[in-house]
């Protein structure tokens, strides 16, 4: 117990600030994009910008995208502070984050998950495989593009995409959800 406390006290704070995060290109630090930061600050005050709940659906990914999603929860990225969190059930989710090229064996699962999510909902395709630009592409066992099966609102390419890219993708989805809400009112099935 004591070791735990001392180790914790010795740990430096590693969390990136929101500005750093929105500018993070993974390899070398970029400069903060001020318009992105400002629009984020505006979005934060709205219903879907204030709280985004994600359910991850693996439709045949190679596991790299999963690990990048998991990395979002670590102290460096800490997406919870952005009001974004992973939830245990699609019933609780606003955004389905789909990774992988939609294999034949998972087609039904994706459909069921999509049905199990309440409107307004959105699908965010993560990674080249889900976006339809993957190396494996279409085979007897997979469709190679998630958009063929469910409506995809936004996508983040990369193999795998950088965690910061995923965050930017999530912000984009939240923005679109919020726009749709403002346009169509509560409970809209528009998306």
């Amino acid at each position, binding site marked *: *117990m004591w070791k*735990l*406390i001392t180790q*914790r006290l010795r*740990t430096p*704070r*590693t*969390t990136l600030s929101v500005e750093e995060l929105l500018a993070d290109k993974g390899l070398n630090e970029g400069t903060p994009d001020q318009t992105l930061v400002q629009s984020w600050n505006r979005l934060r005050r709205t*219903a*879907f910008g*204030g*709280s985004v*709940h994600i359910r991850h659906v693996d439709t045949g990914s190679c596991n790299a995208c999963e690990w990048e999603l998991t990395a979002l929860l670590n*102290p460096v990225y*800490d997406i*919870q*502070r*952005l*009001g974004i*969190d*992973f*939830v*245990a*059930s699609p*019933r*609780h989710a*606003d955004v389905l984050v789909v990774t992988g090229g939609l294999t034949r064996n998972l087609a039904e699962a994706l459909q069921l998950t999509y049905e*199990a*999510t*309440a*409107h*307004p909902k959105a699908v965010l395709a993560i990674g080249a495989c889900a976006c339809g630009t993957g190396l494996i592409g279409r085979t007897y066992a997979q469709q190679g593009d998630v958009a063929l099966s469910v409506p995809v609102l936004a996508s983040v390419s990369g193999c795998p995409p950088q965690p910061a890219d995923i965050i930017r993708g999530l912000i984009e989805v939240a923005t679109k959800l919020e726009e749709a*809400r403002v346009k169509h009112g*509560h*409970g809209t*099935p528009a998306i």
Partner: protein
Amino acid sequence: MLDALQVILILLFAPFLQGFIHQVKARLQGRRGASPWQPYREYRKLLGKDRLLSTSASPITRVAPVFIVGLLIAGCATLPALTSSAPLLAGGSFFVFLSLLAFARFATLMLGLDSGSAFAGMGAGRDLLFGVLTEPIVLLSLIAAGLQRAAFSFPSLLAVHASSDIWGKLPATLLVLIALLMVLIVETGRLPIDNPDTHLELTMIHEGLTLELTGRDLALIKWAAAIRQTLWFTLWLDVCLPVGIATTVAPGPLLVALLLWVGKCLLLGLVVAVLESLSAKMRIFLVPRYLSFALTLAVIAILADAAL
């Protein structure tokens, strides 16, 4: 009037306390964490979402969430937060308060089982086990606190506290304090008993019962969990640390009581968060051992009452 004020205060403060604990935990984990206001944002969003109901569900699913919150509101009306002078429901009787919580538990379990999800069943089985163990401990601890003066309601217990020095009967108070804290951790679903942040459905207890809920229902159940937590915090403070609770109905003392209550809740939240950050979830079948320790403390407190 004052009664309604206390109720509304608890209802509004509960989500903040939840968010505060969450934030403290994040800080202790080396993160920044969501702001304490995050729960309100979540509720706002959830209220704007559609509701999905299971095809297996009965009308229970439609009414239970509102009903659970209603029961907890009645619970709020039974427990003094700022002052015991308000005309509390049923005179603030221990038994009525805990029966209301038991009713809420019953309704929650019904809500969970209604959809036929196995995870809800799992959560229900575990919650029932904990309920079987905690209920006697809580009531015994409460009785131990007021046994000598025949104080079996919160106002009379607070009156005893006000009239005598609680530290005068230190052993019993101290034992009750620990026993109730141990139960509080179980009842609010915190580590090392239940992991409120878990994403593993097989390990869930309270979370498992909510997996089927959407939109408004989910918001209500989350709010109910927050209210329940605040109620347990307030109960603990009423019994073990009633410092500053208003004895007269005047704006001054009430303001002090309000500030102190909020402060004490946050302090207790801090303690809970620290305990959570230091612990891992224990095996389910070790929980009875943990609780039997609390039971022993409560029994010893009673014996101390009888002996002194």
